[in-house]
Structure formats: C-alpha cells, structure tokens
C-alpha cells in the first residue's frame, strides 16, 4: 500500500518562470524509509511543502496516507510529523517548554506518547531547562525530531535533518530513524549527503526538479554501472586537466585525492590510457579499477539528464 503517492506534480515559482518540480511521480510504501537525495536547489523542500499541505502544486495530484493534499488538508495536518530544513522551534523556550507546547498544539501530552520519543529524549533530558536557541546542532535536531514525533504521526517528513550536524550525531540520527521505522512509521527524508543514501530502503535521486532514478541504492548503482577507474598522482591538478583533455575520457571528477574516470571506450581503452599517463612521467602514479559509489552514479545520471 502506498503511504505517499505523488502523480505528475509540477510546481513553478515567480509566476511560472522558475521551475521547481518538473512533472514528478513516485510512491512511498507504508512503513518505508524513503530518501530523497539531491543537491541544494533540487526541489526537495518544495516537494516536502506540497506533501505537508503548505504549498499548492501547479498541477498533478498527491496524497498522504490516503488523504488528498488539496482536499483533505486538515486530515493530513493531524497525522503527519514535519521537521522543516531550518531549525523551527522557539529559541527562547526551553527544551521542555517546546516539547510541551507542541504536544498541546497537537492535542496530546508528552506523557501520552513518551514511549515514542523516550530513546531520543533521554539524550537531551539533562538539558531540558536550557533554551532551544542555546543548544548544539545535534541537540536541536533531536529536539526537533521529538517535537515532530510527539503526536504519534503516521507519516514523518524530515527535510534535511542532518544538515549542519556532526558525523557522530548524524549516524545516531539514522539509527533513530531505523527504530522509528520498526514502529511502522513511514518516513520521507531528504538529504544532500550521498553517503546517507545507504541508510534508506529506497531512494529517489532528484536534480533540478526532476527525478533521475528511483530504486534501492544497490540497484541504482548496478543499473548505471560502467567501468570506473581511480587515477591518482602527486600533481593532482595537472593530472585532472590532462585527463579531461584526453580524447577517450568521457567524464573525470575529482574525489578527494583521486580522479574518477569513465572512458568512452569503456574497458577497451584502459591500456591506452595507462600508456598515455605513463608517458607523462607522473610521480606516484596509481591507476586502479573501482566499483562506482552513489556519488559516481549521481554524477553520471546528472550529466545524462542535462544532455
């Protein structure tokens, strides 16, 4: 059963001149942890706002837990939990006060649904008297999640919850999402971090308002697999420029100290490239075949969509 259903949603801003979402369709199954992955400005927040009934789409249909986002606005607002990308709690209220306030707004009490947030709340409880504005990024995010969960939502919308949060807290946060999923809550989460894709059941890659691909992470990588080489040398910048100029190079991107290269002739051109680079006398030249990761796949899909 589809918990979130999106059909041909298009959304423009500035009287139609800026295209934010371009005819996108997909569905999220009940109880699924679904990741919406794409860079800033891809349209993630716009989609979240349409699904949480904050914005009207120009065209297309969408429903959440069986309720239409246009017609059943008040039904949706009762059953979803929403954590906006920007920290949106009352900075001058303490952790406790924020939580109590949002519980009351949703017609419930903290005690009633404490079991839902307990695991998260115990981590911030020692600071419960502290004002929300004075919390660290990771604690703010935990508090925001508590507030979004306090009314036991059926569907949880988390817009870039891990942006600006340290790596340890990020991992912890995803662990928490796993546990929420185990309780049967459908979760739609967006992130600009490709490495978080592996934590989702399925992901949608989104770029410039278009969905590039929807599937499990492994399948997306598998489906878009092409021979990929990691090329590394001391003179990194010179190497990159030279690789990009090389006639057989299709794409070449810097990944840390490495260059990830795809050749037009795929495997067949490997020896030729190797000879070419050897002739340039790089020190510490290192060439090896690697498995593509999600970022390689995303770049490939992105370039294809731009063609």
């Amino acid at each position, binding site marked *: 059963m589809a918990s979130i259903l999106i059909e041909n949603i298009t959304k423009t801003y500035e009287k139609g001149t800026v295209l934010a979402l371009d005819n996108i369709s997909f569905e999220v199954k009940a109880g699924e942890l679904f990741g919406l992955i794409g860079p800033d400005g891809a349209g993630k927040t716009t989609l979240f*706002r349409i699904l*949480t*009934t*904050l*914005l*009207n789409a120009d065209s297309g249909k969408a429903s959440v837990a069986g309720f239409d986002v246009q017609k059943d*606005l*008040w039904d949706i*607002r*009762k059953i*979803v939990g*929403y954590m*906006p990308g*920007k*920290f*949106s*709690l*009352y*900075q*001058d*209220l303490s952790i406790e*006060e924020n939580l*109590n*306030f*949002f519980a*009351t*707004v*949703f*017609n419930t009490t903290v005690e009633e649904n404490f079991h839902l947030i307990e695991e998260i709340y115990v981590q911030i409880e020692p600071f419960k008297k502290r*004002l929300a504005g004075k919390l660290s990024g990771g604690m703010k995010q935990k508090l925001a999640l508590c*507030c979004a969960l306090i009314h036991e939502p059926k569907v949880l919308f988390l817009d870039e919850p891990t942006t600006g949060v340290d790596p340890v807290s990020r991992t912890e946060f995803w662990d928490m999402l796993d546990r929420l999923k185990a309780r049967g809550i459908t979760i739609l989460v967006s992130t600009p971090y490709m490495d978080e894709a592996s934590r989702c059941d399925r992901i949608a890659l989104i770029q410039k308002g278009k969905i590039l691909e929807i599937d499990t992470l492994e399948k997306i990588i598998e489906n878009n697999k092409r021979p990929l080489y990691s090329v590394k040398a001391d003179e990194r910048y010179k190497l990159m420029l030279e690789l990009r100029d090389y006639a057989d190079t299709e794409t070449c991107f810097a990944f840390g100290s490495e260059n990830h290269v795809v050749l037009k002739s795929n495997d067949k051109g490997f020896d030729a490239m190797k000879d070419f680079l050897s002739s340039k006398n790089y020190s510490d030249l290192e060439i090896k075949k690697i498995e593509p990761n999600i970022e390689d796949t995303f770049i490939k899909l992105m370039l294809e969509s731009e063609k």
Partner: protein
Amino acid sequence: MKIFFAFVRKEFWHVIRDKRSLIILIGLPIVMMLLFGFALTSEVKNSNVAILDFAKDEATQKLITRIDESEYFTVKKTLSSENEIKGEFQKGEVRLVIIFPPNFQNDLRHENKSQMRLVADASDPNTANITINYASAIIRDFQSDLSNNKKLPYTIDLETRMLYNPQLKSSFNFVPGVMTLIMMLLGAMMTSVSIVKEKEMGTMEILLVSPMKPIMVLISKAVPYMVLCFIDIILILLMAVYILDMPIQGSIVLLLAESLLFIITTLSLGLLISVNVDSQQVAMFISLVGLLMPALIFSGFMFPIENMPLPLQVMSNIVPTKWYYNIVKIVMVKGLGFSYIIKQTLILLGMTVFFLTIALKKFKIKLE
C-alpha cells in the same frame, strides 16, 4: 481551550524573556507619562520675570508682590532703564518684562485708568502667549479687587471660566493622548511583529502543519497583548490620578470598557498588518509610519482637527485613534455618560469588525 492556554502561556514566555519587548511594554507608558507630565509640559511654571518700575508706589508694589507670589512667576530682577530689556532677553534669563509707567497709582486714582506694558520673549511663541495670559489674568484680578471698593461707570466685567479644566492643566490633554498612542503602538505594532516573527523564524511552518485552526492561531497571539495593553491602561490611569493629580470625572468602568474596545481595534489592525507582510522590519515600519503617524496627527491630541484643511479633516474620520481620544476626553475629562459616546463607540466597533474580518479572510493557511 487547553491549546489556547498553552499558546497564551507561551506568548507570555516570549514577552517576559525578551527584555527589550518587556521594557517597551511596561516602560514606554511610564516614560511617556513622566515625559509629558513633567518634561514636555506646555504649562508655564515659575517663569522668571523682570520688573521695570518707574512709579515705585504702593499700587505697583502690591501688584509685583502678587505676581511674585503666584506659582507661575518669580520676580528675578528689577531693571532701571528700558535699554536693559533687550539684554535680559538675550541672556535668556527672563521670559517676561513688566513695565510700570511713572505715576501709575496717581493715574489710577485720579483718571480711573492707567497703563502698563508686558514685553514677552516670543522666540517661543507658545510660551510667550501663555505667560502673557497668566500675567494678564493676575493683573485683571488685581484690577477687580480695586474696583470692588468703588463703582466705576461703564466697565465690562469680563469673567472667563475654563470649563472642565479650570487650571488649564496640560495633563487633561496628554493623558488621553498618551493612552491613545500607547495602545496604537503596543496593540498594533507588538502584535503584528510577534506574528510576523513566527513566520520569519519558521515556527509558523510547523504551526500550519498542525490541527490548529487559523482563527485559533490569531486569537491566541492577540490575547496576551490584549492583557498587557489593559495593564498599561490601568498603569497610565493610576499615574494620571496619583502622580499628575488628574481626576477621572466619569465612570471608570465605562472608561475601561471603551479602552478594551479600542485595544481590540488596535489588535485587529496589528493582525491585519501581520497577515500581509513577511518580515518584522516591514511590520514595524508599517505600524510606525502607517499607524503611529496618523494616530499622532489625527487624534486631535497634538493638533486641533478643526484647524486642518477640509480634506484632512475628512481623512481624520477613518483614523480610529481620533474616536478613542474623543471618548477618553468625554468620559475622563468631562465626566459624561455613555449616551454621549454612542456614535464613537459604534464607529470603533464597526472598524474592529471590518479589520478582523479582512485579517481572518487573508490569513493564509498555506505558505504562499
């Protein structure tokens, strides 16, 4: 109802924790009352006066003593020639010079009339006018005391009475004015800013994605400010009565009820602003320029509306402050009852309903 109380409590936390808004809410009325009451007063007290007495007889002595004893004047100097007058004004030490001609008492006795001259420093025209008026009043008083002793033919006894405010206290004018301004400033500005703040901080986004109905959001935002404004009104009235000695002539219940109505008018104006703008600065700007300026100009508190050109007089009718100012003066100063302010009350009521309806209609339940 529980949601409503939680919201109101939250709103009070906001106000109490934001020292700046707390100072504005409680400090502003106090500061304004004290300023208008003691610093920005148009009353003239203890003005320095110089005397140029060419007569130096019994009558001038009596009159000078009387002037000196009044609370309005202090005789600072006695001059000996007219040439000194200019110098005194230039030094700025005296505001008024009183000149008695030679033979003042003789003329008075034998010809039944005498002349004297008042020279005032009119570089400040209002003060000059007021000092001349006060001095004239004292002299008239003196004259009538003299005439009691004997009948003079063909004199018109002019007896003026300043009704409702015999002492011409400026507090009778500015207390209603301050009440009007404070309500406009706090009711409209603070409310609009506090709602727009929720938009700016992003908390409105979460409130919208909740079962809370828009009317609930608006009302629960407005109620705390209503309470605070009402506290301010009481504060102002207490200060008026106990510090500025300005009695409340009419029914205090009526005055408070009308104030509550006006508070609701300003709150609905604040709500109207807040649903139309997206940043705190714009909200503040609109309340200051769009509300406070007209409130100041068209309430009749600073400038008499009757003196304005006709188009402006017509315009003043759409400014709610004019009507409230009117009500306060009628109830507080003149001590009249409800039957005298029915029209004003109905106009305020109509305006409130109008503003509230538009505000509620325009309140967006979405982000666009």
